[in-house]
């Protein structure tokens, strides 16, 4: 088990290196620099600034320096916010995105899985068709449609929640709902589909025959097997949350990492672009590892198959 985790972690290093190199060249190829303003800088000043950031050196030297700094845990200085390091800028925004992401994931799980269980318990009745219809719509309506609609109804029409900003629990409601309900839809469909298959298995019939209550069969006996693919889906779900967070954070003006990335692209702030991309890559790789470990813990068969 320990060796397996170690092996997976070691596997991440070359992957992350490839991500760094690819993003590095892409970000440096972006036309326009962070110092291009409406009023051009005097040539000498620009030269000084570029020398400070090492931009006057050949690209491969810059790449070498960047990886060297990275090995020491530094993401370099920001080009748009002088005096701030990228570590500080990103560090200040991580808690915001983590809170938003966790609450959304919680909403997704608390809505998606029970809905899937209920739908599977009465297949092809209204209790199945109505929630599954909503789930299909939820899959097809992207976050950037759902988010504005939520804001339109609950903020502008009803005035229940603030339309944008950050700071109190009521600010969290709309963005977390926008992200969470969109993620709940595929979860509900997945749970229903898997449970429908598990319900046909012999051990479920045995449990029913020996008089286990229907609720216990559904939520304890069947769900443990039915939940396996749902746990595996945690990886893709996290990826969807990440890309959804760009839109939702920009839309509701949440000062998180997603908004930072979009702003950095518009500002051509190369170190921030690199830093956020790297952060997302690490987060997603780790989440996939966690999903695999959780699956192994729930299903001894996959644990045995592992090399």
């Amino acid at each position, binding site marked *: 088990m320990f060796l397996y985790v170690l092996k997976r972690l070691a*596997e991440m290093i070359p*992957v992350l290196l490839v*991500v760094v190199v*690819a*993003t590095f060249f*892409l*970000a440096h*190829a*972006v*036309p326009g620099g962070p110092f291009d303003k409406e009023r051009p800088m005097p040539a000498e000043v620009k030269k000084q600034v570029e020398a400070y950031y090492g931009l006057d050196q050949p690209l491969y030297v810059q790449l070498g320096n960047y990886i060297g700094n990275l090995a020491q845990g530094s993401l370099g200085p920001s080009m748009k916010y002088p005096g701030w390091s990228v570590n500080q800028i990103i560090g200040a925004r991580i808690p915001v995105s983590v809170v938003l992401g966790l609450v959304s994931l919680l909403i997704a799980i608390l809505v998606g899985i029970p809905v899937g269980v209920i739908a599977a318990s009465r297949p092809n009745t209204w209790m199945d068709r109505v929630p599954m219809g909503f789930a*299909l*719509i939820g*899959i*097809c*309506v*992207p976050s*950037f*449609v759902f*988010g*504005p*609609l939520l*804001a*339109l109804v609950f903020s*502008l029409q009803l005035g229940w929640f603030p339309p944008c900003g950050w700071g109190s629990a009521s600010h969290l409601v709309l963005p977390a709902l926008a992200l969470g309900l969109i993620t709940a839809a595929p979860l509900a469909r997945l749970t229903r*589909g898997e449970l*429908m*298959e598990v319900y046909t298995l012999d051990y479920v019939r045995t449990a029913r025959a020996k008089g286990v209550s229907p609720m216990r069969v559904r939520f304890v006996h069947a769900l443990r097997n039915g939940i396996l693919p749902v746990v595996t889906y945690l*990886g893709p779900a996290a*990826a969807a949350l*990440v*890309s959804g967070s*760009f*839109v939702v954070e*920009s*839309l509701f003006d949440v000062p998180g990492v997603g908004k930072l*990335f*979009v702003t950095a*692209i*518009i500002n051509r702030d190369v170190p921030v*672009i690199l830093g*956020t*991309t790297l952060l*997302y*890559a690490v987060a*997603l*790789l780790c989440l*996939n590892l966690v999903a695999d470990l959780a699956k192994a813990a729930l299903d001894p068969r996959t644990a045995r198959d592992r090399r």
Partner: protein
Amino acid sequence: MSAAPANVSAPTETGWQRFQRDRTPVIALWFLVGIAALCFSSPLLTALHWLPDYKAQDLALGPVAPGAGHWLGTDLLGRDLLARLLQGGMISISVGLIATAVALLVGVIYGVVAAEIGGRFEDLAMRVVDIVSTLPLTLIVILCTVVFGQNIWMIFLAVGGVSWLTMARIVCTKTRSLKNRQFVEAAVSLGQSRPGIVLRHYLPNLSGTIAVYATLTVPGVMLLEAFVSFLGLGVKSPMTSWGMMIKEGSDVMEQCPWLLIIPSVVFAATLLSLSYLGDGLRDAFDPRTAKK
């Protein structure tokens, strides 16, 4: 066909007949054909003066709610929303089709080659797919579109370039199962070359699967493009796409809700139809993976 009881397929029934028995995917197909035909005929309609030019501004007019003069109203610059919706649809649907074609090409070649060589190479190739699919690909697409100057062809390529992974995985699994079939063994023993086997035996047998998953790729690809456009990093103004129109609409949703609602509904309906169509095709042509 009418005599056959529901959900029981005759052995002689073709996939196409099975597809047509279910009503929803057929309706979805006709809806999509209609939308696509309308969108792609919009330059012709404009040339015939049946439809205003999507670029023509009328600043004096400003935003007008849907009504007799402009059926779907106008945007802030007084541009006709119907004309823009059709033009945007043309871009969005083109991205969907062309990027899917790119994804198809890369994914099928990758999958077939990996499975055909087999052994450690196949393991390694599939591990690469696994790892790449856990990366934040949306960020890469955004970067690519910015680097290459929001050129429409680069958007096709970038979106297609990250959407081939599922296709590669499915094609690889399918090809591996084909490898042990008797007709392939027969072809090998008759001395057919490996490229010949791939072309004559693998690809024809894979075509159904490929078609099904291509249909399921289209909505994802369109979503990705709309997403990039929504962030203001997609196609360039005055060109438009559905994602960009939704973005413009969400900026002014308080004053002009129709600018948000109409493109959103059309976009969501198109995506919904595409997934119904994809599910229908999968159930009809790939019955083993169909859900009970």
